[in-house]
Structures are given as C-alpha cells and as structure tokens.
C-alpha cells in the first residue's frame, strides 16, 4: 500500500476548490467555473492513468479500457470498483457507482420549512452546486480515457443518490 492521507484532506480540498471557482472567480459564469473544474479533473485523470497503467499491456479495444477504469482505476481512487457497467455497443458506456464516495457527505436540504417559492430556488441552487462537484470526477474519467487514446465526453447522473452514474460517450 502506498502513502495515504486522511480523507478529510481531499474532501476539504475539493469543497474549497469548487467554492473558489463558483463563488469567488466566476460567481456569475457557472459554465466557466465548470470548465475550469473539469480541466483540473482532466489533468489529474491524465496523470493517474499514466501511473496505473505502467505495468500492463496495451488495451485491445474500448471495452477493455473502460473495464480498467471500472476495476483497477476506481479501486485505486475509491477502494472499491464500479458496481455496474452498461453499454449500448455503439460507443456509450454507463458506469454506476452505487455509493459514490464524494457524494456521501452531501445532504441536500429538502425541508419544506422555507416556504415554497424560496425553496425551489434553494433546491435549484443546491443542484447546481452538486453538479459542480461532479465536473471533477467527470474530468478525471475523461482525462484517463483520453490518455489511453480514447477521446470522449463524460457526464454524470445523480437522479438516485447516493448512487452516481457516469455516462461516457466515445467520440467516433
């Protein structure tokens, strides 16, 4: 086992990174904030895939590379594998993590106390922040895959928390 740090370190760093970009640098330009956060993830994914593929042969096809992300890569990052992998066999893969670590401490305020109108805006706000947090892991996956020679787009779906699905669309 390599070197470890407390999980709080990475949790705090990610929270602060998202808040720096969303609330301080680009408070009114969420799409710019999103792009920066994704770019940070991309670099991390790129570097990590380099390290974790050092001792293995080249992947023969896309599926094999995706499986590597689901198993070895995910285990290095989260100490567990992706729970479910689906594909339409036309270049789209859905990677589902039933309990995605980086979402486990996020509770969304769903109390009706605040009055209906205000509530919807808070909910929308929270949703926006939550999706900001997901640009980072999406960037990691995209960075890792593109380093393995697979250009793609990655998005996340959190309609049934704490599960999280990452949708990978490979560019033809």
């Amino acid at each position, binding site marked *: 086992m390599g070197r470890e740090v407390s999980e709080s370190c990475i*949790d705090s760093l990610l*929270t602060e990174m998202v808040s720096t970009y969303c609330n301080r640098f680009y408070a009114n330009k969420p799409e710019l904030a999103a792009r920066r956060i994704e770019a940070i993830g991309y670099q991390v994914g790129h570097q990590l895939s380099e390290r974790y593929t050092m001792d293995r042969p080249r992947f023969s096809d896309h599926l094999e590379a995706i499986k590597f992300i689901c198993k070895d890569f995910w285990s290095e990052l989260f100490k567990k594998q992706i729970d479910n992998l689906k594909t339409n066999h036309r270049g789209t893969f859905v990677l589902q993590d039933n309990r995605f670590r980086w979402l*486990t401490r996020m*509770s969304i*305020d*769903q*109390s009706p106390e605040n009055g209906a109108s205000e509530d919807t805006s808070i909910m929308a706000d929270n949703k926006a*922040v939550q999706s900001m947090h997901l640009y980072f892991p999406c960037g990691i996956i995209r960075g890792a895959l593109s380093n393995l020679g697979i250009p793609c787009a990655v998005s996340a779906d959190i309609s049934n928390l704490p599960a999280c699905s990452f949708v990978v669309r490979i560019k033809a």
Partner: protein
Amino acid sequence: MAAIYSLYIINKSGGLIFYKDYGSKGRMDTNDSLRVASLWHSMHAISQQLSPTTGCSGIELLEADTFDLHCFQSLTGTKFFVVCEPGTQHMEALLKVIYELYTDYVLKNPFYEMEMPIRCELFDVNLTQAIQKDRVVLLGR
C-alpha cells in the same frame, strides 16, 4: 431505562442552529426552543464569569427535579446540550460523539454554511442512530 428528551446546538454567537425533540416529554414549540437556547447561552457565559475558579469553561451539568441538562462547549465556541431524564448516564460521551458527527456530516457538507442553521439529512440519520438507547449504553464501556 433513562430517556433523552431533546438536543440543542448553539453557534458561537448564541444562535440556535439545531434543535431536535426525542420522545414525548418536554416537547416545545419553535419559540420556546429559541428562548431556551438564548437563555442557556447567556447563563453559560455568566457562569464562566461568576465562577470562583479561574479558567472555568462554564456549566457542564444542570440537575433539576424533572430533567438533567448536559452541556459541552467545543474550543471553537459551539455548544451542544442534551436535556434528559434525571440520572441518565454517559451523556458526556454522547455529546462528544455528536460533536464528531457534526464535524463529519455538517462541516464537511459542501452545502453547509458556517454558523447557519443545520439542515443536513445525513447528520439527522447518524444522530438518530447515535442516540438510540442501546448505543448510548455502549458508550459507557
């Protein structure tokens, strides 16, 4: 078996940021709970001033005929207190557990803003577990 009636969390400026009722006794409406919180905040501060010993950190236990009130104040100034049946055991340990849950599920929640009322489902869930009687008994070990 002794019961816990309610739990309060007060921020460093005295605002009630969390209140929860457990069980049937001592139920309060929102206004009363706010009153208890601000009253306790002031009394706690006054007790520090009045204490004959220097470096007193305020009241830790208030015993009444019908309830006990156990209070824990973190070094950062946040106060946690439980109101429970007289003689309930292991409340200091429980308050420490609650403080730890607060640091994990409130302070690490990216949506939580410091000093503001706590509305975190995960905190609620973990708190409910910690407060179950059989769990509290285990704290005594």
